[in-house]
């Protein structure tokens, strides 16, 4: 397990040294500007706009980082042959994959934490004080992190057998389809015959990102049910674990030419 930690720490360090967290500056500028602008033009919906904008930005920034770092996690190491000196040590291939996964998710958690501070700062600027319902923003942020977990595992899966470009296309496509997973399930319910089977299969196979998106509810100060939090947590952890297992199975058999 120590080796997983070392690989994760090195992956995290790579992201920091490659200035991935510089996106936080862009995020801070975007959010500060929006907060000032919204504060001046909105009447009584400042909070709604700031929460919506802030959480959507957190999600989008994270999705971009998860995909663009995740797709290169394995393929870049193979291409640059940095992997050779790692795997010639007492490091098992699954340890490498799991370490990479935790390193990237760790980066995204830190990233999300920093951006969350920005969201709350902007909220304080427009509302002048916090309300009890603002605590639901934390739940929305937690769900966003769960989305990142799934997305990181998918990017890593594709990276373990495909080129970075194809991996990016696959991961982004799944993110878009997964964001409409509830609609896909609705469509499956209305279809018949083979279409119904195919749509149902696809609806349950793709990650259900739409269930993890509660930004609208939180912006309207609606509470999130405890069972949804529990279900989403279990779902994201199980889905990511399965995808990581798939990545390990592929990588264990791969010739590092």
């Amino acid at each position, binding site marked *: 397990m*120590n*080796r997983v930690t*070392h*690989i994760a720490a*090195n992956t995290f*360090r*790579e992201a920091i*040294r*490659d200035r991935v967290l510089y996106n936080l500056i862009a995020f801070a500028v975007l959010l500060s500007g929006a907060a000032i602008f919204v504060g001046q033009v909105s009447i009584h919906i400042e909070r709604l706009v700031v929460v919506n904008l802030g959480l959507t930005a957190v999600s989008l920034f994270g999705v971009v980082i998860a995909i663009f770092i995740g797709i290169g996690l394995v393929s870049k190491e193979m291409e*640059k*042959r*940095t*992997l*050779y*000196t*790692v*795997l*010639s*040590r*007492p*490091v*098992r291939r699954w340890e490498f994959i799991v370490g990479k996964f935790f390193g990237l998710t760790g980066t995204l958690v830190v990233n999300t934490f920093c951006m969350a501070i920005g969201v709350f700062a902007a909220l304080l600027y427009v509302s002048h004080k916090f309300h009890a319902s603002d605590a639901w923003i934390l739940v929305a942020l937690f769900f966003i992190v769960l989305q990142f977990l799934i997305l990181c595992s998918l990017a890593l899966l594709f990276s373990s057998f495909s080129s970075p470009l194809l991996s990016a296309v696959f991961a982004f496509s799944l993110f878009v389809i997964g964001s409409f997973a509830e609609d896909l399930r609705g469509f499956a319910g209305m279809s018949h015959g083979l279409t119904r089977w195919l749509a149902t299969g696809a609806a349950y196979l793709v990650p259900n990102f739409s269930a993890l998106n509660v930004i609208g509810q939180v912006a309207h100060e609606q509470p999130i049910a405890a069972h949804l939090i529990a279900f989403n947590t279990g779902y994201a952890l199980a889905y990511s674990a399965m995808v990581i297992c798939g990545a390990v199975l592929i990588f264990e*058999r791969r*010739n*590092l*030419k």
Partner: protein
Amino acid sequence: MIALETINLEKTYAVGFWRKKPRVALRPLNLTVAEGEVFGFLGPNGAGKTTTLKLLMGLVFPTGGTARILGKDINDPAIKAQIGFLPEQPYFYDYLTAKELLEYYARLSGMEPKERVRKVEAMLKRVGLKDAARVQLRKFSKGMLQRVGLAQAVLHDPRVVFLDEPMSGLDPMGRREVRDLMEELKQQGKTVFFSTHILSDAEALCDRVAVIHQGELRGVGHVAELTSSIAAKVELIWNGSAVPAGLSALGAECRVIGETVRAVLPEAQQEAALEILRRERLRLISLIPVRSSLEQYYLQKVSPEARPAVGAR
């Protein structure tokens, strides 16, 4: 003890769009390297040297056969703590400094914190990078990267060290440093298995060498044994500019150089050639045996007519 043993180790890649076309990278390879030996693995580019090393490191999987390092199967993770590896033209995490990189590898090798700090410092000093310890690797030259590569390969005090083209791309000073390090490893009783196509280095360093070409083992043995297997030749030099007609029939290669003629011919024809020179009343200046070099052996083995070695050990 046997440090390395390969038993019918082979690798065939499936290539082409549908991956149905086989490309043989390594034909069944049988090799044994004793502990403490410096073993040179020679061959031209694309001969199968890197494939063999990748198979031994578990980076690619064999199509057939197996290999054992220090008596353990290469798939046994425990054996990885006993081996060091320097890939060809190594590339490392360039966002790390030399010190951070070595510390990272030391951690992955399971070294204790105290030992890690001591070894990393000592190794940076050993490879002449103490002053550059805190410089990011992206600012390193090729020679410096090679030194970092060597440092990471021997950092954890492995018993068997595998080096893939360790002198490749280095200047004469760099090559000398690598040779010194390999000699040091030999003195410490380590086994060194290295691939190269720089024959002078192999001749100077190796106890034994193997020649591989087109994925086939063409010969293996002690350098002296291998060079002595080449038909011996002699060099005759005499005064004058005339080349007697009979010499060509003896297989002599003659060249007129000013007032002398130089002829190189098989040792077996030496007496016949001397008889011709006596008959023609030509004055012999010198008769020198031509020493067979590893290069001659190598060129003979990688020539299109050469046949693979059978059951080479």
